[in-house]
């Protein structure tokens, strides 16, 4: 991790010096820069997630159709992905690449602030620009709070400033919730009226994530709460950009044959001549290039003999 962590600690310390020893501003700008750097990955991941969501009805139909034949199901699913130009790992890979970056970002903030002697020792040797040592240790005081310490709720009500920790935690919860809502589109309800497990899980995540982040903000440093708020806000903006791209894309309804079921045969050899009209939204190159990566129209429905 050092190859990511050391430049991050250096950048954060450099920003601190540039912005006149203002740690909060440095954390905010640092978070914005890192989120911008990972923007292509984030966008790719969000688009892929949305595309997969759109394909869910088709995938469910395939699952019902090929119950008990995993090989056939996998082959049909791959065919479907190919037809719509979706990489099923497209949502995971960018996330995997981003994970160490965000972990390093979090660690960099902790290290730069260095509340304890051990954390300060861990910071040693990480500054890659000569002369930055002169600003160590960074000023961790902000609005009468210590950025290295967890918010102190015991003093609430003693002054106007004492409400800041609770406001920060509230903002963490709110922005986490909004980011989740913006980036995770609601799944289409099932036609049979039964509760959809994926949707249930998604709803649970929408409830639990803000609570979890609120809990983190309460347990860890105030500096980290500021990072959460800024990072979530950028996530909301990015999510809105992706959602807007999708909205432009939707008004072009098209009925496509999503699977090659017409005239196809099942594993037991019985023919099931059912075409599957999908309310999917294949991309229109002339209309929206951003959607190109999501769902591509099937040039020709493939057929199986």
């Amino acid at each position: 991790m050092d190859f990511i962590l050391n430049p991050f600690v250096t950048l954060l310390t450099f920003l601190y010096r540039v912005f006149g020893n203002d740690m909060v501003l440095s954390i905010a700008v640092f978070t914005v820069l890192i989120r911008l750097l990972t923007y292509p990955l984030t966008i790719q991941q969000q688009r892929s997630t949305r595309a997969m969501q759109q394909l869910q009805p088709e995938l469910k139909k395939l699952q019902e159709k090929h119950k008990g034949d995993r090989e056939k199901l996998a082959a049909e699913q791959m065919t479907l992905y190919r037809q719509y130009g979706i990489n099923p790992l497209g949502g995971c890979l960018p996330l995997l690449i981003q994970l160490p970056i965000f972990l390093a970002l979090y660690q960099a903030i902790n290290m730069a602030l260095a509340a304890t002697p051990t954390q300060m020792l861990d910071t040693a040797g990480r500054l890659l620009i000569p002369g930055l040592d002169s600003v160590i240790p960074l000023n961790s005081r902000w609005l009468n709070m210590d950025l290295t310490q967890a918010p102190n709720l015991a003093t609430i009500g003693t002054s106007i400033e004492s409400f800041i920790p609770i406001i920060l935690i509230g903002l963490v919860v709110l922005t986490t919730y909004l980011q989740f809502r913006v980036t995770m589109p609601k799944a289409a309800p099932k036609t049979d009226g039964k509760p959809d497990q994926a949707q249930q899980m998604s709803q649970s995540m929408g409830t639990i994530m803000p609570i979890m982040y609120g809990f983190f903000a309460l347990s860890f440093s105030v500096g980290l709460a500021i990072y959460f708020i800024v990072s979530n806000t950028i996530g909301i903006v990015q999510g809105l950009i992706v959602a807007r791209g999708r909205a432009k894309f939707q008004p072009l309804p098209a009925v496509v044959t999503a699977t090659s079921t017409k005239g196809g045969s099942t594993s037991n050899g019985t023919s099931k001549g059912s075409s599957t009209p999908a309310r999917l939204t294949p991309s229109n190159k002339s209309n929206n290039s951003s959607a190109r990566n999501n769902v591509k129209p099937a040039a020709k429905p493939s057929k199986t003999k």
Partner: protein
Amino acid sequence: MTFLRSRGGFIGAAMLLALVLTACTGGPTEPSWGDISVLDNNLILAFSGTILQLNPDDGTPINLYDTEGNVRTDPETNAPRRWEISLGATMRFYHAPLVVSEETLLVASYDRKLFQIERDAARIENTVGVDLPGHVVADVLQANGLLYVPLSEKDLLALNEDDFSQRWRFTTTRGVWAAPLLLNGVLYLTSMDHFIYAIDAESGEEIWRVDTGGAIPSAPLLYNNSLYVGTFGREIVQVSLNGRIIARYSTADWVWGTPVIANNILYTGDLVGNVYALELTNAGFTELWRHQVTTRAIRPTPVVYEDRLIVASRDNFVYWLNRNTGDTIVRQDVRGEVMAEMLLLEPAEGLNITQPMLFVNTMARENLLFAFPADGNGEALWKYPR
């Protein structure tokens, strides 16, 4: 994994994950690096939230005795009671207790508390402790009826010894991570705000201050009317007792430990594993040698023993170097990072040891304390816990 499919199960699992993540992350629950000292001819060891006494000769725990000299026993198990205090895993001591009277010890914790310990009974007098307005990672200094308490966020407190009320508070712009040095009624205080301050010990008034250009995490060393400090500005700085910078020497990285001087030669280590020997001359520092002994941090102050210089590192090793050349003579694996100060003891009246010994406190709980022959030759004499 079917329980995850229910909403309750999923929420429970997520909460559990949150708790696990909280526990795994550094910061709030990070252990302290502890300290060793001598009390009543025994070793007194403070680490995390525990303070205990050990026999320096063999590392066995010291028992508690009653007024008639009999070993106190546990009324339920009849086992001998040890001189040991535990304030829980969340409490963190960076320094061993200070003897403030015949009956009482005093210890400050990182957790903004000051505790009084009944010396004979190994009992905390007030288990809640006295609240402090900041964290403490440095020794508390006692003098003239006052307790000087350095706060790691900022400032030095002077508390009345009898009731812990505040006499004065000296303001710094960053933390104070080392105890002040008291000389002729003047406190010489180093701070992470880059300054060395001279303060009137009685009134708390500033006499002078000097900017060294880098954070100073350790106490100054007084030698021949000069103060010597290592800084995060990658320097060793010599300052006169009237606040004038006399000499500087550039190191490869941050210097944390207080330097040590023997035979007019200053020895120090930096946080990337270099060790330096600098001759003190009228012109300032003259480099005799410098060696990259290890690639990990050398945090504690080096120890001088006869012709050897002993340094300890985060690489889990203690090194005995030739003082004249800096070459490594022998090294010992202590199977834990060394961040705490080492302790050298030589046989003396009342002290139950038969040879000079070096005590090394590590961060590994299973290898907390090692005793070596002071010259480093041979195996460890003992380790605690066994």
